[in-house]
C-alpha cells in the first residue's frame, strides 16, 4: 500500500522553508556587487522585469508541478512523459554537486566563526585567507593534501544538513523557524550598524545611483535575468519537491510571489549592509569605494574581516554575527538541495529516509573533500561556473519546454488557479513558453559564444587572420588549462547527464508494481 505523503505542518512553515532555500550566500555576496557593477540603481529596473517575467513564473511552475504531480522532480517529469524522468535526475544531481562545494564554503564559515572570537585573521586578511586558511597552491594541478580544519568544517556542515532533513518536512519545519528569521534580524543589525558609520552614504551612492545608459546594454539585462534565476534555487528540483509536500487545497501562486519578493527584498537589504560598510572601509583607508569593492568569497573572507577590524565597538561580536549570518543563510539552501535528492529517491524506490539521507550525505561529503585540498578553490571556481551557467540554465530551459509545450502550460495554470488566491492569466503561459526559454537560451549562448566578436566579424571589423575558433567561442574560463575545464566543466556535465539517464532507466517500485 502507498504510504501517505508527508505534508507541511502549515502554510507559514512551507513559505519559510521556500524562502530559506531561495535565500543563500549569493544574496549577500553576489546581488549587491552585480547591482553596483551593472548600472547601480538602474539595475533594479531589469531586475524587477526579470523577477516578474522569469523568476515568479518559474517559481509558480516548480511549485505547481510538484503540487499537481505530488512528486519530487524525477517522478514529476516522469508523469509528464516517462522518457523525461532523466531531466528531474539531472536537476537533482546538479543540485547535489553544487552542494558538494557549497558545504566547503560553509566549512570556511565555521572556521571563521571560531576565528571571529579573537579576530585571528589579523591585519593581512588576504594572506590569512589564501595562505593560512586555504593554503592555496600555485596551480590547479598542484592539489596537495586536504586541509584538516576545513574538512572538519565540511563535516559539521554535513552533520547539520543530515539532521535538518532527517524527518523530512517535519524536521525542516522546525529548523527553518530559526534559520530564516535569524539571518534577517542579523542583516538588519548590520544595516543599522552600517548606515551609522562614517562614509556609509558614499558607499550607498555607489550602490544606488542609477546609470540609465546601462539599460541600453544587453549584458545588463542578461545579468539581471541571471541574478534572478540563480538566486531563487530554481532548476535544482528543490521547489518541485517542496511543492509536492503542500496539501491538496493549498495556495500556489501567492506563495510563489511571497517567496520571490522576500528573496529579492533580502538581496536589496543585503546591499545596504555590504555597501554601507564598504563605504566605511573606503573612508578609513582614504580610498574610493570602487577600489575596495569585492564579491564572492573575497568579500566575505577578506574584505569583511578587514571591516570588522576597523569597528571600534565590540568588533568580535560583529565578527561572530557576520559568520553566523552566512551560516544561517546557507544552511537552509544546503539542506534543501539534499532534500530534493532524498525525496526523489524515496519517490522512486521507496527507500528508508534515514538510510538514503546518510548515503547521499556521506558521498557528497567525500566528493567535497576535493575542494578542501590546496587547489580546492580553483576546482570550486570551475565546477561552480559550469554547473550554474550551463547545468542550471539547461535544466530551466528543459523545464520550460517540457511543461510549456509537451505537458501544456495551460494545464498547470488551470491547476494552480483552482486553489490559489491570485489567479494567473495567459501572460504566465507566454512567460513559460517564450520569454524565459528565449532568455535562458540566450544566457547559455552568450556564455559559450563570443557574441561581440561574431558581430564585429560579420560587420567586417574583426581582427584579421584570427582563427574561427577564437572568433566563435569565448576564451577558456579564467584561463584554466583545457584538461581542468574538461574534467571539472564539460566532463562533469556529461557525467551528470549520463548518470541521470542511467538512474532514470533503473526499475522503480512503480515499475515493479505494474
Amino acid at each position, binding site marked *: 500500500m502507498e504510504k501517505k505523503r508527508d505534508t507541511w505542518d502549515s502554510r507559514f512553515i512551507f513559505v519559510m522553508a521556500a524562502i530559506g532555500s531561495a535565500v543563500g550566500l549569493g544574496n549577500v555576496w553576489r546581488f549587491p556587487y552585480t547591482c553596483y557593477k551593472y548600472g547601480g540603481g538602474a539595475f533594479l529596473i531589469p531586475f524587477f522585469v526579470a523577477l516578474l517575467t522569469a523568476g515568479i513564473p518559474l517559481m509558480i511552475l516548480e511549485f505547481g508541478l510538484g503540487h499537481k504531480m505530488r512528486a519530487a522532480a524525477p517522478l514529476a517529469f516522469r508523469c509528464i512523459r516517462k522518457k523525461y524522468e532523466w531531466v528531474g535526475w539531472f536537476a537533482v544531481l546538479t543540485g547535489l554537486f553544487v552542494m558538494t562545494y557549497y558545504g566547503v564554503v560553509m566549512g570556511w564559515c565555521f572556521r571563521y566563526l571560531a576565528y571571529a572570537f579573537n579576530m585571528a585573521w589579523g591585519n593581512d586578511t588576504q594572506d590569512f585567507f589564501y595562505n593560512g586558511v586555504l593554503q592555496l597552491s600555485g596551480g590547479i594541478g598542484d592539489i596537495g593534501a586536504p586541509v584538516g580544519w576545513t574538512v572538519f568544517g565540511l563535516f559539521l556542515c554535513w552533520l547539520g544538513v543530515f539532521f535538518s532533513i532527517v524527518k523530512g518536512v517535519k524536521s525542516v519545519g522546525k529548523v527553518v523557524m530559526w534559520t530564516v528569521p535569524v539571518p534577517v534580524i542579523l542583516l538588519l543589525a548590520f544595516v543599522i550598524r552600517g548606515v551609522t558609520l562614517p562614509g556609509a552614504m558614499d558607499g*550607498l*551612492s555607489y550602490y544606488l545611483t542609477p546609470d540609465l545608459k546601462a539599460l541600453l546594454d544587453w549584458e545588463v539585462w542578461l545579468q539581471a535575468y541571471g541574478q534572478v534565476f540563480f538566486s531563487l534555487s530554481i532548476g535544482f528540483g528543490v521547489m518541485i519537491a517542496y511543492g509536492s509536500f503542500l496539501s491538496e487545497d493549498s495556495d500556489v501562486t*501567492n506563495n510563489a510571489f511571497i517567496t520571490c519578493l522576500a528573496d529579492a*527584498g533580502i538581496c536589496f537589504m543585503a546591499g545596504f549592509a555590504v555597501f554601507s560598510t564598504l563605504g566605511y572601509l573606503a573612508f578609513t583607508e582614504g580610498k574610493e569605494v570602487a577600489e575596495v569593492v569585492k564579491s564572492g568569497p573575497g568579500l566575505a573572507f577578506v574584505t569583511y574581516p578587514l571591516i570588522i577590524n576597523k569597528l571600534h565597538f565590540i568588533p568580535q561580536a560583529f565578527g561572530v554575527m557576520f559568520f553566523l549570518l552566512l551560516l544561517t543563510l546557507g544552511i537552509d539552501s544546503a539542506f534543501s538541495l539534499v532534500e530534493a535528492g532524498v525525496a526523489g529517491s524515496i519517490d522512486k524506490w521507496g527507500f528508508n529516509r534515514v538510510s538514503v539521507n546518510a548515503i547521499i550525505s556521506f558521498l557528497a561529503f567525500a566528493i567535497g573533500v576535493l575542494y578542501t585540498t590546496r587547489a580546492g578553490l580553483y576546482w570550486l571556481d570551475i565546477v561552480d561556473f559550469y554547473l550554474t551557467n550551463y547545468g542550471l540554465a539547461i535544466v530551466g530551459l528543459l523545464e520550460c519546454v517540457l511543461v510549456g509545450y509537451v505537458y501544456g502550460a495551460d494545464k498547470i495554470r488551470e491547476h494552480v488557479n483552482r486553489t490559489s488566491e*491570485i489567479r494567473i492569466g495567459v501572460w504566465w503561459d507566454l512567460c513559460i513558453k517564450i520569454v524565459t526559454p528565449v532568455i535562458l537560451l540566450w544566457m547559455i549562448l552568450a556564455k559559450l559564444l563570443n557574441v561581440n566578436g561574431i558581430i564585429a566579424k560579420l560587420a567586417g571589423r574583426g581582427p584579421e587572420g584570427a582563427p574561427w575558433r577564437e572568433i566563435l567561442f569565448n576564451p577558456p574560463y579564467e584561463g584554466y588549462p583545457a584538461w581542468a575545464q574538461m574534467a571539472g566543466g564539460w566532463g562533469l556535465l556529461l557525467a551528470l547527464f549520463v548518470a541521470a539517464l542511467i538512474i532514470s532507466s533503473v526499475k522503480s517500485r512503480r515499475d515493479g508494481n505494474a
Partner: protein
Amino acid sequence: MPESAWAMLIIACAVLYGGLACCIGISLGASKKKNGSGK
C-alpha cells in the same frame, strides 16, 4: 547621496516590500475567509 539614488531607493522599497506586504495581506485575508467567522 544624489536625488536619483534616493528615488531608486523609494521605488525599490515600494515594489519589493510593498509588493510583499500586499501578498501577505491577500494570504491573511484568504485564511480569515477560509476559517470563517463561526457562521
